[in-house]
């Protein structure tokens, strides 16, 4: 039973990770990454490592995507303000 669960979560993690790599737009990539973070947290919990799962949930699915989104926003704004005055 628990083995089947492990396999299912592993497959889901592999699918989400592939989707994150295949996605070219960084803003969408951050969303996929956040989803991947949740799946990885589930995987760690299934493998009886809830401490690591919690770290993964907090960092991988909240903090990292947020930092990526903020960087994307900064880069886009910079592009716009450079085009603007000229």
């Amino acid at each position, binding site marked *: 039973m628990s*083995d089947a669960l492990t396999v299912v979560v592993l497959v889901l993690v592999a699918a989400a990770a592939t989707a994150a790599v295949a996605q070219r737009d960084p803003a969408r990539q951050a969303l996929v990454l956040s989803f991947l973070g949740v799946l990885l947290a589930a995987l760690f919990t299934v493998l009886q490592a*809830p*401490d690591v*799962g*919690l*770290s993964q*949930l*907090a*960092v991988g699915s*909240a*903090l990292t995507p*947020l*930092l990526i989104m*903020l*960087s994307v*926003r*900064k880069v886009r*704004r*910079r592009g716009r*303000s*450079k085009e603007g*005055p*000229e």
Partner: protein
Amino acid sequence: MNRLRLVLLTVGGAGLAALLVAACLRLPDFGGRRHPYGDRAVHASLSRHTANTIASVNFDQRAYDTLGEMSILFAAVLGCVVLLRQAGDERRARPEPAEVARPVRRYALLVLPVALLTGLYVIAHGQLSPGGGFQGGVVAATALHLLYLGADYRALERVRPLGVYETTDSLAVAAYLVLGTAGVLAGTAFLANTLLPYGTFNTLSSGGTVPLLNAAIGMEVASAAVVLLAHFLDQAVEIEETTGERTEGAHER
């Protein structure tokens, strides 16, 4: 030159692959019943009345490693603060108060206290249940930023005096070091968990210095994440470059 690089990469990669395969062949089976290290860690953790063995490993048996991890985070955040500071050719533009969709506002303001409390709970119960200073610190710090979603950036800035968080970050690092040094002064070793009584098993004050070190890490991580996000947010929302905008320079101040 390029060929040399390729040869170097091939040799290095082949060596790494050979070592990894050799190591994997001697790994114990997946999900086996024999865990020599785990058994010893659990025994040591129980003998010091720490219910969560992971916390015992992090803050007692391997407290020195945690000191290293904490220093890495501290140095990384310090580097980001220096890199993302407001440079000479940049200016701050006050962000306009933004319209927030009502469901988003309601959800964010409803979840914020719950998430913040969860973060603090996870920090406080680090030595008893899964979690601890690191996990809870990140949760508490990100919870605060729901205010940016639910209201706007100026509201977030009002509840987040950055200087206080920067000071707390450094104070927490210092607290960890002082707790470690206290062990030396008491005649044992740096970060040795022999200073305080171990207390009653499975209560908040059990585990000797574990809860204190855990709290120091919680403070450090929470304020480090707030400071890090604050500088990213400043760059994304407030700070603008002024080069090439000479026409706007007149009404800059």
